């Protein structure tokens, strides 16, 4: 490498980086380094980029494609490995990195192990029991957001919450969401909101606890027992939004609902005003239809009824009745006159009989009746010679007249 003399002791960045790179490569032979793999990324180039870390430190590492093909199994997130590598410098960014060409599994990474132990412990305590999960309210009145007031999650949360359900009041309790202090602050915030809620000072229906996305180390605060305890003891339902699709944090496991991102959390927390308004609109139309169909139904019924014969030809009924009256009166007449008629006939018969017996009919045939006139206008029927004496006045009754006469003589026949 040709080294131009830097004027007045200055180096360009490139020169510096090249120098450091050279020194690193000269001073460090190929060596084995043990640590936990995190932030593994496998871009299309076929190289693998990852971070190797222990309890306190981390270093960037890369394994190029030809080596990776033989060690893909060993290179996995969270795995404790030994890698054979040469330390070097990525000159473009001045970044210290390990160039790995071999990897051997070293059992489970220590942090991962601690996490697994914590999970087992909390599981045994019943922290993850689905049966104890609280229901997320459908129409929250106040939602508390427990996240950094300056982080990326808060923007998304406020945006989506405000758009979906402006009826819900929002209260923010800001806290750190990464670093050593984060677990204590997150759990204290959960406790504080629960306290004011339980004292009846500020009703809160729902907590959203979380942060925007980040690397696995960034999410570490949500794998903490303090945070798990706070969520577990919260009387207010909790939605977690830790922003990492692949890894379930302990906070996610304890929370009543796990959202992958803050946006998803906001959606899970609230109904959608727009769709509710659409529903209301539909219901209004539906109600109007229901009423008009009711009216139409009744109108149809009325029409059917009014088409019935009794309404259509109302006089027919009267005619039928009249006919019946006629019928009855006829029957009545015949029934009541029958005895009368037979009586009449009898009378006629008797009269005829009577007439045949009457002397008047005899007179009509030319006979006559002689009556002797007595004083005081009395009369006596003359039937034998001794009944009259000459000089008596008699009345001779003919059929249609009578003769007044004086007896002259009485002669025997």
């Amino acid at each position: 490498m040709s080294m131009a003399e830097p004027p007045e002791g200055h180096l360009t960045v490139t020169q510096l980086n090249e120098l450091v790179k050279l020194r690193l490569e000269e001073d460090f032979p190929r060596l084995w380094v043990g640590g936990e793999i995190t932030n593994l990324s496998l871009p299309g180039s076929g190289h693998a980029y990852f971070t190797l870390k222990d309890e306190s430190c981390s270093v960037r590492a890369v394994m190029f494609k030809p080596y990776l093909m033989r060690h893909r199994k060993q290179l996995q997130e969270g795995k404790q490995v030994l890698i054979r590598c040469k330390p070097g410098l990525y000159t473009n960014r001045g970044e210290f990195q390990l160039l790995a060409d071999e990897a051997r599994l070293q059992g489970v990474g220590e942090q991962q192990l601690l996490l697994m132990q914590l999970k087992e412990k909390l599981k045994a305590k019943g922290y993850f029991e689905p049966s104890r999960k609280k229901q997320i309210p459908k129409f929250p009145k106040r939602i508390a957001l427990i996240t950094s007031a300056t982080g990326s999650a808060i923007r998304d949360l406020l945006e989506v919450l405000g758009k979906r359900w402006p009826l819900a009041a929002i209260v923010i309790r800001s806290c750190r969401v990464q670093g050593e202090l984060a677990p204590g602050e997150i759990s204290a915030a959960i406790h504080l909101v629960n306290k004011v809620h339980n004292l009846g000072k500020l009703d809160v229906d729902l907590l959203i606890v979380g942060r925007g996305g980040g690397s696995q180390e960034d999410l570490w605060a949500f794998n903490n027992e303090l945070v798990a305890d706070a969520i577990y003891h919260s009387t207010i339902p909790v939605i977690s939004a830790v922003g990492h699709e692949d890894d379930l944090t302990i906070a996610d496991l304890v929370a009543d609902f796990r959202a992958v991102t803050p946006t998803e959390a906001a959606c899970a927390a609230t109904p959608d005003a727009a769709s509710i308004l659409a529903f209301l609109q539909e219901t209004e139309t539906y109600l109007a239809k229901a009423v008009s169909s009711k009216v139409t139904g009744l109108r149809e019924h009325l029409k059917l009824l009014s088409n019935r014969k009794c309404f259509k030809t109302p006089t027919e009924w009267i005619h039928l009745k009249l006919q019946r009256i006629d019928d009855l009166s006829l029957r009545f007449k015949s029934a009541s006159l029958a005895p009368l008629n037979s009586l009449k006939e009898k009378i006629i018969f008797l009269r005829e009989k009577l007439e045949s017996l009457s002397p008047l009919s005899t007179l009509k045939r030319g006979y006559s009746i002689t009556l002797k006139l007595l004083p005081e206008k009395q009369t006596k029927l003359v039937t034998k010679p001794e009944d009259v004496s000459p000089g008596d006045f008699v009345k001779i009754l003919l059929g249609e007249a009578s003769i007044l006469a004086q007896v002259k003589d009485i002669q025997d026949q």
Partner: protein
Amino acid sequence: MATRKKNESSFESSLKELEEVVQSLESSQVNLEEHLKLYEKGVTLIHLCQSTLKDAEKRIELLTGVDESGNPRLEKFGHESTVKKEEKGLFSMED
């Protein structure tokens, strides 16, 4: 009618009541007079819900702490939402 639970918002109970109205209307046992009464009630509830939603003002506060007796200390939290700008289109059906 709707028995309002302690934690139920008035919006929620209005919505429930509306559901009951619809159910009653769907049962054919209702006579015309009741039917019209229910319809009127339903429409009133719908308009109430709509205006509640449309008139809602967003309230965002920062909880900075509590005093000795547990009263929360709240501050207004400034959040310039894009919602305000879109307000007119917010409740459109395309959403």
